[in-house]
């Protein structure tokens, strides 16, 4: 019973994240990096971290949302796909780790850390594989700054969800 619940919960989060990932690629971003995105699709990821579904499951969501989202937007296996995947995996890893390490970590803190590493990895991938230029360093601080804003919005959403939805704990 618990297992079925867990699977359906992860499925819901994945569906949510993929949908946001798809819609978000239409939002304009004032930074001229191909493939750069706001990162709102990270909030289901954040939700999965703070409800403690476990690192493996969080990574599944990260992988699946990039996969589904990029198939929907027709960018599967394009350089932008690798950027998104790298960012999603990086933020899934760092958010899970900081949730485990920091006792009584807060939603905002985890979200900021995740956004920071996600943007760093995305900029690195863009700089090495797409733009192939050190000039990308010009855009890096702007990316980070947008990450801070997005992370703040994401954590507000997640804490609102936490307050209004009663979650079963998935501790085995």
């Amino acid at each position, binding site marked *: 019973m618990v297992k079925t619940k867990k699977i359906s919960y992860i499925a819901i989060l994945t569906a949510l994240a993929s949908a946001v990932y798809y819609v978000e690629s239409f939002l304009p971003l004032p930074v001229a990096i191909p493939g750069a995105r706001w990162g709102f699709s990270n909030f289901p990821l954040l939700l999965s971290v703070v409800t403690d579904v476990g690192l493996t499951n969080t990574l599944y969501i990260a992988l699946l949302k990039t996969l589904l989202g990029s198939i929907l937007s027709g960018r599967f296996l394009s350089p932008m796909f690798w950027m998104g995947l790298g960012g999603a995996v990086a933020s899934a890893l760092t958010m899970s780790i900081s949730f485990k390490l920091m006792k009584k970590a807060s939603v*905002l*803190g985890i979200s900021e850390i995740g956004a920071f590493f996600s943007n760093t990895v995305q900029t690195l991938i863009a700089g090495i594989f797409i733009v192939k230029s050190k000039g990308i*360093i010009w855009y890096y*601080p702007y990316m980070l700054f947008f990450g801070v804003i997005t992370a703040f919005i994401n954590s507000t959403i997640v*804490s609102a969800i936490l307050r209004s939805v009663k979650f079963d704990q998935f501790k085995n």
Partner: protein
Amino acid sequence: MKFAKKSDIFILIIIFIIIFFFMSITFFRSAGLVDGAQVYLKGKIILEIRKEGTYSIYNEDEEFLMNVEYFNNAVRVNEATCPDKICETTGWVSTPNQPIICIPNKVVVKPTGNQNKAGVDLYTW
């Protein structure tokens, strides 16, 4: 689970310090200093110079064309085989805005570095 804690402020401060660090790098990076050179033959890059020294340039048929010297943040061409020697008379170039051009040998030596925001961008001649 709380939305925010006092420790979050430290995380935010660290992130903002990193943001400002990279912003200031892009603003104050040694503007206009030459940090190397690229050598183009017929529009294709054939050599990247990063370290100080004298480099010999050859064409596809292994014929010697010229020496490129890079010392003290400046680049010049020496001992060119072209008839007009315009590239040699160009002398030391210490701004990334201005490439050294040898039309007969179809070689361009382009000093690399951050492009000057101030000063002359290019020359009409």
